[in-house]
Every structure is written in structure tokens, then in C-alpha cells.
């Protein structure tokens, strides 16, 4: 029984009068491959945003590892081991593919002042001093700094290779075909050395062959990097194909969770996707997809 890497405990968020997410609960452990589905506007991306710190939950908690991360900045949550991709691709368009991944590869520098607690004033000042010192090393181009840069380049190149994008190293991200852009976003997310990977509609816009390749790739990533993965997807075949556990949202609420077979046959799920009139006219059929 491995540790829980990511946990949402009855997280809710409200925008004015709109309850975008209600009592959202979820657990991801190492090796998990879970899915988050639901009709459009159900709150799936909102859930991602709450998990990654873009929104602060109005009630409930989010834990990355053992740490409660409510209200933390997205970059802090990322450093704790949570990485994501975006529904509408958000690559750094003017940067090359290699640079996109390099941005994410944060270097392992020996800090000037060891930072024990990054939240307190002392911790923040120490972190700032470390950062200024690192800029100083960059300006002087110290051999140590040069080695770290080479290391970053190596790690980024490896990730491009894993995602099959080595031939695009020096291309500007905006010039890449759509499917490769999606793969690049995943490579970039992996650069942050996450323990949990959140993929927001990674197969959107792909053709059947690309989707099949993606399914294989996601499993490989899970195995190779020892990740826990949560996928938002609309493509039922993909979700049913790779996810071991599925959570279904509708209007911000969780209407079903469980393994694919159970979810597929769940009345509420079918209703949410196809409408209750469908069930009236097709009482016998049960399965979705």
C-alpha cells in the first residue's frame, strides 16, 4: 500500500453564486492511472485548477504528499511534485521545443543559505538571497553554473527523446503540428520531476492512430517514471482503455466513482451524458461507449 501522493478532501469552490465544484474528493497513489470525466462544463478543469493551486478552495482541503496546500502558489505546489498540462495548449510558443522543456527543468543548485521553512519571512529572505546568488553565478558564468546548465540540457534532451520529439529540438513550439504540441506539453510537465501528472484532455484533436499511441505512451510514462496519473478526457475509448478508476463529475458534483465497468453502467452517468429521455426510450441498454 503506497503513500497517497495527491488527495482532495471534500474540496469545493464557489465563484460568486456559482458552485463550480462541490465536495470533490480524490486520492492518487503511485502507479495509479485514474480518469476524470463528465459532460462539458462539469467542473473537470476547475478541479485541476483547484488541485494545482490556480484557485483556492472555498472549503475542503487539498494535500500533495502529506502537506496541505490550500492557498499555496501554483509554483510551490509544482515543486512539491504535481505537474499538469492544459486543455488549450499553453506552450511557450516563441521558444524552441528544447527550451520549453528546459524552462521546466529546475536545476539542483547547492543553495547559499539552506532553507528550512520556505513559508516564513526568514525562509523567504533566504530563498531570495539564494536566487540572487544564482543570478550572480549566471552573470559570471561560473564553471559550476555551466555544469548545471549542461545538466539541464541533457535532461531536457532525454525527455524530448522519450516523447519522440528529438527531431523537433530546435523548432519553435508554434511551428509544431498539433499532436506533437500536445506531446511537448507532456514532456515539459515531466521536466519538473513530478510525482503526480495531471493531463487535461491530452488526446483532444488527435486522430485514432495518435490516440492509440498516446494510450501506450501514458502507460509507459507511468511505469518508467513511477508516477500517479490523472486524466481528463472526453474520448470514452481512451478513458475506458487505460484508466483503472474513474470519477464522474456533473455540475460540479461527483455523481459516480469506481472502476470503468461500474461507471459505464451507472444510471446517473448515462443520464448526465445522454439525458434522461434516452433512458426512457432505451430502458434495456446500459452501457456507455
Amino acid at each position, binding site marked *: 500500500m503506497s503513500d497517497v501522493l495527491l488527495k482532495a478532501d471534500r474540496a469545493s469552490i464557489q465563484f460568486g453564486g456559482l458552485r463550480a465544484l462541490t465536495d470533490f474528493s480524490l486520492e492518487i497513489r503511485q502507479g495509479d492511472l485514474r480518469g476524470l470525466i463528465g459532460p462539458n462544463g462539469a467542473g473537470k478543469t476547475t478541479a485541476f485548477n483547484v488541485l494545482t493551486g490556480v484557485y483556492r478552495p472555498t472549503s475542503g482541503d487539498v494535500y500533495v504528499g502529506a502537506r496541505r496546500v490550500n492557498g499555496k502558489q501554483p509554483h510551490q505546489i509544482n515543486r512539491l511534485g504535481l505537474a499538469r498540462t492544459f486543455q488549450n495548449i499553453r506552450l511557450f510558443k516563441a521558444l524552441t521545443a528544447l527550451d520549453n522543456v528546459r524552462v521546466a527543468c529546475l536545476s539542483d543548485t547547492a543553495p547559499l543559505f539552506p532553507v528550512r521553512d520556505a513559508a516564513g519571512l526568514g525562509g523567504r529572505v533566504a530563498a531570495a538571497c539564494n536566487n540572487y546568488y544564482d543570478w550572480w553565478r549566471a552573470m559570471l558564468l561560473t*564553471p559550476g553554473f555551466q555544469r548545471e546548465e549542461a545538466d539541464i540540457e541533457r535532461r531536457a534532451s532525454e525527455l524530448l527523446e522519450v516523447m519522440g520529439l528529438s527531431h523537433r529540438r530546435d523548432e519553435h513550439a508554434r511551428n509544431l503540428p498539433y499532436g506533437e504540441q500536445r506531446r511537448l506539453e507532456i514532456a515539459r510537465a515531466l521536466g519538473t520531476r513530478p510525482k503526480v501528472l495531471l493531463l487535461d484532455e491530452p488526446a483532444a484533436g488527435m486522430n485514432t492512430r495518435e490516440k492509440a499511441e498516446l494510450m501506450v505512451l501514458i502507460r509507459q510514462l507511468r511505469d518508467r517514471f513511477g508516477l500517479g496519473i490523472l486524466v481528463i478526457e472526453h474520448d470514452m475509448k481512451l478513458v475506458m482503455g487505460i484508466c483503472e478508476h474513474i470519477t464522474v463529475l456533473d455540475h460540479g458534483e461527483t455523481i459516480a466513482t469506481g472502476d470503468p465497468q461500474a461507471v459505464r453502467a451507472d444510471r446517473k452517468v448515462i443520464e448526465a451524458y445522454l439525458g434522461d429521455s434516452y433512458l426512457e426510450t432505451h430502458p434495456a441498454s446500459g452501457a456507455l461507449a
Partner: protein
Amino acid sequence: MANAGPASGSWLKAALPLLVAVPLLAALQPLVSTMPFALYISSIVGVNIILAVSLNIVNGMTGQFSIGHAGFMAVGAYAAGLFSLRVKELAISGLPPMLSDQLLLVAALLVGGAVAAVFGFMVGLPSLRLRGDYLAIVTLGFGEIIRVVVQNTDVLGRALGLSGVPQRSTFFMVWLWVFAVVLVARRVANSSHGRSLWAIREDEIAAEAMGVNTTAYKVRAFVISAFFAGVAGGLFAHFVPILNPGSFTWVKSMEVVVMIVAGGLGSTTGAVLAAVVLTLLPEALRTLFNQFGVGGSSVDQVRMPVYGLLLVVLMLGRPQGLFGTTEVWDVLPRWMARMKKRLA
């Protein structure tokens, strides 16, 4: 931008540019010092290059919009000027007076830069947390507040100006700092820090999601940019006889903005070239204007609406400016490789 980054580690690689530049500048120094006009012009050009390249780090690489650079220049100028005034009579024992003067000048410049950097931190930290447009207004306001404070403070000479600052600036010193700021800009751009800044410019939310502390990085860029603006101001204080707040108005800030927009937001090369052209061109036209006299308006007066028109035309026609984000050191190797192939 092409892929950027160093290949291997060595002190030689790090120090090489300095080893080339220092002797070169030292050699040019005696030549230039015999021509006072050339000295003055090269100093003005040098100061403008430092301002443009430093602002480019914030407005170009990080994609922010700071329009109060003259305020930091002013802070640096007055801080360095006051420091030099206080130590005017001092000298470092055991050194020839020229060297002692130059070292004290360096001290003054570092003081000016440091004070400007502190102001950069104080201005940047609260405003960089807000939406992008607000930075523009805050930096504009900052420049204005500095001007008003100077005009109301006796020790800074009020509106009449601060006089008596020892005129110790030399060609060597100005262009050493020009070299320094260009080197810093280049090294930052090619490093992981620079990539993070570019990422912030491209998509702040994605950068944040990839672990980049966007606010901290924006503030860092702002502080370093302010430091160099302060140094530029300090140099300026040491080659103009009287330092008055009229040199550091919003107009000056906008001049620098026009330079980097025309050169290409993000391109250090573009910033340098635009600074040179936009400083020399009005000077060259000045004699022309004196001969023809455009209805009583001088070059300085016509310059401003022309800059305005230039900005509008650029944004409508070629918003990436002259160079976009390309740098001569990226383009040159590829061009030379192509030339070699053709000649082979």
C-alpha cells in the same frame, strides 16, 4: 530565438570577454580623450545604451511594461553625485591620483546602482503582483514622484540643480559599463533564469505551473534593470556639469521605451543599435535644422512627435521592431556557416 546555453565549464570561457574588452577600451581611451566632443557624444550614447539594454530585460525579455526608467536613472545620478561630492577631497593613499579618482568613481557608481536597485525592489514588489497594465502607471508615477521630491529637496539642489560633482567620467569607464550590461544581458538571456523570463513573457500561467515563481522573477529582473539604470545615471552625473531634474522626466523614460520598441522588444542587439541611432540621429540633424530652421522648432521639439509617430507606425506595421527577438550572436554563426559553405 535559437537554443541557448553553454557547452562546457571553464573559467577561461567565463572571463574571455573581459580579457578582450578591457585592453581594447584602454587602448581607445587616450585617443578619444583628445576630442572633447567625441568624448561627450560617446558618453551620451553609452549611457543610452545602458538604459536601453537594462530596460530591455524587463520590457523585452520578461514582457512587462515599465515606463519609469528615468526615475531609477535619477536616483542613481543623485546618489552617485552626492557620494562623489562628499568624497571629493579624499584620495586613496599610495595610488596615483588618476587611479584613485577612478576607483572612487566606481564606488560612486556602485552606490548609485545599489540605491536604484533598492528603489527598484520597493517599487517592483508591490506592483508586479498586480495586473500588467498597473505596472505602467506605477512606474510612470514613480518617475514623477522622484522628480517632485528632487524639486523640493535642498540637498539635491531643487530645480536649479546639483553642481560641483567631480567630472571624473572617462570613455573607458562609460564603455566598460556598456560592455558589462550587454554581457550581463546576454548571459542572463542564455541561462535558465533568462528562459524563465521568456516563459513569463510568453505565458505567465503556464510558467507558474512549471514551477517558476513568476513574481519573484519579475522582481529580480526589475531590480537588476534598476541597478544598471542607476549606474547609467551615476555616469551621467559625472560628465554633466549640473544635475537637474529636467534631465529625468517622463520624456526621457519614453525615449528609452521607443529605443527598445524600435530595436525589437527582447533583442539586446536591437536595443544597442536603436540606442546608437536614436542618439546620433538627432545630433546629426541638429546642424541641418539650424540651417533650415523648421518654423522656429528645434530638433529636440520635433523629435518628440516623431517618436510618437514612430511608435504608432511600428505597432501597426512591424510590431516586432527591427530585430524582433533575434540577436547578432545567434544569427552570425549561422550566417558565417552559410558563407563558408558557399565559398568552399
